[in-house]
């Protein structure tokens, strides 16, 4: 049960990677740092004015979208246009990840931060099992985000354009659309998802600036296992990871749960790199 709820939350965290790495094929390893940034933003507004963390996450999505669009423009101008994205692009994102983590720890120190909301302490009975709202709410929001992104990609004009850009850029250009603009939008949405995911993260557990490192393996394991860019697959893979991790921490202790994502990542890469629902 705890694993299932954790899975919904992991899906929210991994959506950005699914979109940016899975569909756009941009290895944005700085994504976890954006999630942590979202968590700290939620913390600041929550402790200063007492706003609900998830509301803060939602309100800040336009800001994150802007930052994401800007990052993509720099990335495109410096690397993608010159065809140098593989080596230098990775280093670029690593640099961003690093700068963000260090800046956060310089601003907030390395103490654990957490948020207060009306529901954090409460729980309800579901089928005879006590479920903490602290886990239930992020799971529900995570599933909602997944459904929203799925519908957006399948039903709207820009969503379909993003799917198209992931399949054939040249064809899209022939249709009169600008692939760079579409990718900017998709990248922005991916980063905007990090804002909400960060708010969920800090609702579940306290956060330090180096928490991003724990999530790198999880995010990419889920994206690869789910099949690169498959939104439904992301949710399934997230639930699988969540359940495996909670079983692992029940039987072997919580410190081993990090090894699960790495094992899944390596297994998926070695056996079936296309993932469960890969094309």
């Amino acid at each position, binding site marked *: 049960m705890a694993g299932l709820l954790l899975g919904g939350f992991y899906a929210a965290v991994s959506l950005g990677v699914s979109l940016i790495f899975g569909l756009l094929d941009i290895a944005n390893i700085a994504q976890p740092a954006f999630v942590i940034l979202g968590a700290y933003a939620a913390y600041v507004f929550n402790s200063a004015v007492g706003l609900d963390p998830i509301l803060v996450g939602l309100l800040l999505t336009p800001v994150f979208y802007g930052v994401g669009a800007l990052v993509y423009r720099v990335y495109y101008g*410096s690397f993608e246009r010159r065809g140098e994205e593989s*080596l230098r692009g990775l280093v670029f994102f690593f640099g961003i990840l*690093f700068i963000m983590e260090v800046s956060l720890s310089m601003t907030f120190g390395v103490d654990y931060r957490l948020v207060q909301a009306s529901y954090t302490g409460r729980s309800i009975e579901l089928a005879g099992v006590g479920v903490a709202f602290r886990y239930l709410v992020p799971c529900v929001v995570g599933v909602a985000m997944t459904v929203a992104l799925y519908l957006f990609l399948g039903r709207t004009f820009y969503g379909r354009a993003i799917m198209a850009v992931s399949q054939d850029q040249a064809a899209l250009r022939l249709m009169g659309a600008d692939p760079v603009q579409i990718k900017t939008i998709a990248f922005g949405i991916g980063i905007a998802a990090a804002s909400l995911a960060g708010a969920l993260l800090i609702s579940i557990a306290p956060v330090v600036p180096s928490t991003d490192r724990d999530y790198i*393996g999880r995010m990419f*394991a889920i994206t690869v296992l789910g099949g690169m860019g498959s939104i439904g697959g992301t949710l399934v893979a997230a639930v699988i990871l969540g359940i495996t991790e909670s079983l692992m921490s029940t039987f072997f202790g919580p410190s081993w749960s990090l090894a699960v994502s790495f094992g899944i990542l390596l297994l998926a*890469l070695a056996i079936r790199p296309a993932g469960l629902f890969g094309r």
Partner: protein
Amino acid sequence: MRGIVGALLVGGLVIAAGVGLAGARVNPYVYFAGYVILQYVVIATAWNILGGYAGYVNFGTPAFFAMGAYTAVLLIKSLRAPLPVLIVAGGLVAGLLGLGIGYLTLRLRGTFFSIATLALSVVLQTVIINWEYVGGSRGLSVLRPAGPPFGSYVTFLFTVMVGLAVVAVLTARFIERSWIGRGLAALRDNEEAAECMGVPTLRLKLFATTVSGFLLGVAGAPFPYYVTFVEPNSAFALDYAVNALAMPMIGGTTSWIGPVIGAVLLGTAQQLATVTISSEMNLFIVGVVLVAFVVLAPEGILGLARRLRGR
């Protein structure tokens, strides 16, 4: 052939100069800081064999470095093995780790290898934290052997690191000039074309990963004797990951001299900076310099120098 003899000669001279400096017994801080800078020469050179020559980015430098360090801890604690054994064993274990990770991920696109190495440090650190015999999360004190040459053990380690740095740089230079280096450069520029031309890409990549991992482990093996207290946070420090990338990127990745320039410049600057500003600020600056170089001067200092000369 003459090139190799010349390089060996220069290497010998550098070692002689290092031993001479150790004999001179100047301010002990020189050896203390010099060790760290030379350690970064080894790390940057090792990283560049895979990253610069083959174009595969390794984010897991701390994992390989710590593999070397913890292999040494294990051998010191169980067998009190001498330093040369520690260095070779540390290198072998880290090299095997490189081979294993490479075997699982290098057949796919380079991005997957990078992501796997990124997660590798976190997982290995978890393993070490849970392993009480080598100190767990609390760490472990290591006693240095008595009666070192040159009066103090740090001075002795300094000369050892001079030797290791020379070996690492000569190895890199040899690889770069041989058919292996040309094969790696070919697969870096266009892997499919290289494969079609008959370059054994997978074998070359595995070779580069193993050698790179070996040298990173070698750099880590004397670490327990240098710090005398090993704990996971210092052995798996993020500093190694970012510096291993930043140094070759700043110096220039296509030649063996690039990482050396980067390591000496950035290493010296950091040694001076840690005295005056906080270590976090220090890392922040390294990160900013790294991004600035990748965006503005992708060929590093070597590329800048070449452009100036070309004008």
